[in-house]
C-alpha cells in the first residue's frame, strides 16, 4: 500500500474556503527513460486523482507522465457540512490508494 499524506483542517466554519493538500508515494515512471542497456522502462504512473466530500465528487485531476514522482496536489473546497473527505488515486498496473480525512464544520 502506498503511503499517502493528506492535509485537511480538522475544523472549519460553514461556508469557509479550505485548502486541501494531498501527496502519495509513487515513482511516476514516465515511460520515456531507458536502462543502461537501452531497454525502455515501462510506464508506471498514477493517472487519476479524485476527491469526494461526503460521497460527492468535488475535484478530479488527470496526471500525465510529466507529474513529478510522489504526486502532490493542492486545491480548495467550501466546507459545507461535517463528514468525510475521501481521496482516491488510481493508475497503471492496477495501482489504487485511498485515504480519508474527517472534518467538523461548525
Amino acid at each position, binding site marked *: 500500500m502506498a503511503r499517502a499524506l493528506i492535509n485537511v483542517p480538522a475544523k472549519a466554519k460553514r461556508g469557509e474556503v479550505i485548502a486541501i493538500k494531498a501527496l502519495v508515494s509513487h515513482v511516476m515512471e*514516465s515511460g520515456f527513460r531507458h536502462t*543502461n542497456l537501452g531497454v525502455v522502462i515501462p510506464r508506471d504512473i498514477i493517472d487519476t486523482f479524485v476527491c469526494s466530500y461526503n460521497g460527492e465528487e468535488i475535484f478530479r*485531476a*488527470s496526471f*500525465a*507522465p510529466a507529474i513529478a514522482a510522489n504526486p502532490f496536489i493542492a486545491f480548495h*473546497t467550501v466546507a*459545507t457540512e461535517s463528514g468525510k473527505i475521501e481521496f482516491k488515486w488510481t493508475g497503471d498496473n492496477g495501482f489504487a490508494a485511498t485515504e480519508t480525512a474527517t472534518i467538523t464544520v461548525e
Partner: protein
Amino acid sequence: MSKTRPTTQTTRRRMLAGAGALLSGAGLPIALVRPATAQVQANPAMLALAIRKVTGGAKVTPGKVKLEIPPLSENGNAVPLTVTVDAPMTKERYVKAIHVLSEKNPQPNVISAQLGPRAGKATVQTRFRLADSQTITAIAELSDGTFWSDTADVIITLGACLEDTP
C-alpha cells in the same frame, strides 16, 4: 560520485557494442546501439493539437489565469507550479477545468483538473517535470464556455523525464 561510474561503464559498453557491430560487418552507427532518447520531444504542432483537444477549437484569450512557476530551476525533476484563475466560483459561473501544457516535454499534457462551484477558489498546485527550458501554458475553461490562458517561461539546468537510470 555515484554518477560518474555508470557513465564510464556505458561508454565502454557502447564502444564494445559498436566495435562488435563494426567487426560483424553490420556497420551499425553507434547511436543505434542505444536509442537517442533526446529525440522524444513534443513540438509546437503537438502543443497546438493538445490545445485544440482541450478547447475543442474554441478561442483562447490570454488573461484571467495566473501561472506561477519559478523562472529558473536547477533540476527539472520536481518543479512547483500554481495556477490561479481570477473568476467567481458561484453556482452560475465557475471555473470548470484547468489544464497545463508543455512545449518540449515528451508529451504536451501535464495535468488536467476538473473543478466545480464547490471549489470556492480556482487554484491548483502541483509539482511537475520539465525536460528542457521552455514555455508552459495554462488554460482555464469557464462554465460559460470561454477559455483563458497564461504562459510562463522556465529555464532548466538539468532536464527530467529523459535521463537514463544510473
